């Protein structure tokens, strides 16, 4: 494992499976009476949340506490951060407090990367969602959930077909899932109106289509992304009703899915927009399970990043080589 978890791309197949296997073992432990393990005793985990996300924060907090870490919650609202303190000064404060890991949620893409590579702090950085970039632990819990239902809880996701539907353009969940699920051998299809697919998506390691109905029959897992209502005002699509009609998962569409397939949603849901009420509450919906799995997966990540000796910063895969991005030769 690298020192940080900033992107799902930081995980190769072996490391991704290591996280999932570790989470599986931890789930077996925590299913029994063992609610607290001594593993991270004396370690400090800071939840640094510049953006409201109660569910993600609680999940990380539960994970850290079950491993006996000391947890400090640092919510930006109402703190010095909202009074204009920079990310740098906040980071220096956390470093002075001796944070072994910082779990960061931020509205700016790249904030976790910046924190990890700026030299401001020495501990591990875990990206809990940065802008419209990535949310790697969400992808891990999604993969964990799919593996449980579609692959018997072991091995990778080779040949499994995953359909991700909705606002891919602004979705960090979609980005991390495409990367991780592909690493694990799954075949991913993105479904969205053309306005909500990023430029260059054809270079991503996945398929895309504008037609949800065309892929339902071959889908093993379907993941519905939240549609932010403000996108409607920015003319990404004409109305919530039209969106729902073309890209929402209703009972009729759900019935076109194969018998074994599962319905997922990273939450929070807009019931009646991207997912119908009856679908969200159906037997195929694993949405509540995703939440449970989130704690085990985050325990696994914390254990693997913090449970061992800290490796040198040289082991990171996510540092670009500046020289690679420069044209130094005549190219015509």
């Amino acid at each position, binding site marked *: *494992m690298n020192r940080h978890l900033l992107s799902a791309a930081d995980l190769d197949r072996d490391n991704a499976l*290591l996280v999932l*296997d*570790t989470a599986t*073992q*931890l789930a*077996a*432990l925590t299913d*029994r*009476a*063992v609610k*607290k*393990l*001594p*593993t991270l005793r004396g370690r400090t985990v800071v939840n640094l949340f510049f953006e409201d996300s109660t569910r993600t924060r609680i999940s990380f907090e539960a994970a850290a506490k079950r*491993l006996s870490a000391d947890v400090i919650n640092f919510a930006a609202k109402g703190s010095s951060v909202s009074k204009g303190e920079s990310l740098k000064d906040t980071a220096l404060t956390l470093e002075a407090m001796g944070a072994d890991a910082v779990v960061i949620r931020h509205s700016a893409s790249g904030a976790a990367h910046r924190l990890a590579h700026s030299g401001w702090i020495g501990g591990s950085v875990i990206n809990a969602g940065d802008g419209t970039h990535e949310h790697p632990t969400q992808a891990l819990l999604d993969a964990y959930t799919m593996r449980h239902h579609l692959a018997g809880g072991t091995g990778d996701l080779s040949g499994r077909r995953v359909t991700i539907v909705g606002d891919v353009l602004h979705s960090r969940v979609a980005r991390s899932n495409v990367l991780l699920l592909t690493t694990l051998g799954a075949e991913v299809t993105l479904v969205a109106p053309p306005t909500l697919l990023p430029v260059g998506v054809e270079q991503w390691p996945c398929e895309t289509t504008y037609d949800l109905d065309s892929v339902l029959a071959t889908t093993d897992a379907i993941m519905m992304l939240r549609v932010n209502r403000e996108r409607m005002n920015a003319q990404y699509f004409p109305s919530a009703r039209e969106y729902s009609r073309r890209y929402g998962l209703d009972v009729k569409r759900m019935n076109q899915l194969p018998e074994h397939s599962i319905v997922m949603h990273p939450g929070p849901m807009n019931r009646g927009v991207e997912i119908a009420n009856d679908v969200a509450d159906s037997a195929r919906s694993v949405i509540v399970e995703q939440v449970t799995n989130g704690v085990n997966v985050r325990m696994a990540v914390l*254990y*693997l*990043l*913090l*449970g*061992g*000796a800290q*490796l040198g910063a040289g082991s990171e895969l996510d540092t670009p080589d500046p020289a690679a991005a420069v044209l130094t030769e005549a190219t015509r």
Partner: protein
Amino acid sequence: MSAALTPEGTRTVLDGAEIARALTRVAHEIVERTKGGADIVLLGIPTRGVYLAQRIAERIRGIEGLEVPVGSLDITLYRDDLRRTPARALLPTTIPAGGIDDKIVVLVDDVLFSGRTIRAALDAMNDVGRPRAVQLAVLVDRGHRELPIRPDYVGKNIPTSKAEKVHVHVAEHDSQDAVVISGDSGIGEQP
């Protein structure tokens, strides 16, 4: 002892037959010491301790006709040296259906060295239940204890230098049974 020479400066200190005899003896001692073995649970420490526990259980069945519950107890999350090495993958913990409360738990490990593994195992077991008593069976005791821990059942005492490494091979995992020592013996045998 057949100190057969094996390649790369290693030497075999126990072969398959010797391991089999040692385990049989340990099984007999457990039955004797626990007055028939009625309330015991064998918990192997992964990886090889689990196979050894299963073999001991087979022998007890042979001796007493008794099905002894066997489980595995991973101690990784309880280690006190976590900060010294990269994080390790976790191994399975399986507790037999009857649990361990009020049972006599016999921990089974391949090699007893510093005693820190057993310390971690006692902690891990504490989170699983409350046995009536805990005993310890090991295939090899190589000395150099760092904690006040001693085995109840020993397959073979093998004096070693601290610099040496003791490898237990079991057929289920390593394709053959053997106990092999490698590395500097520290007592000037080598040129």
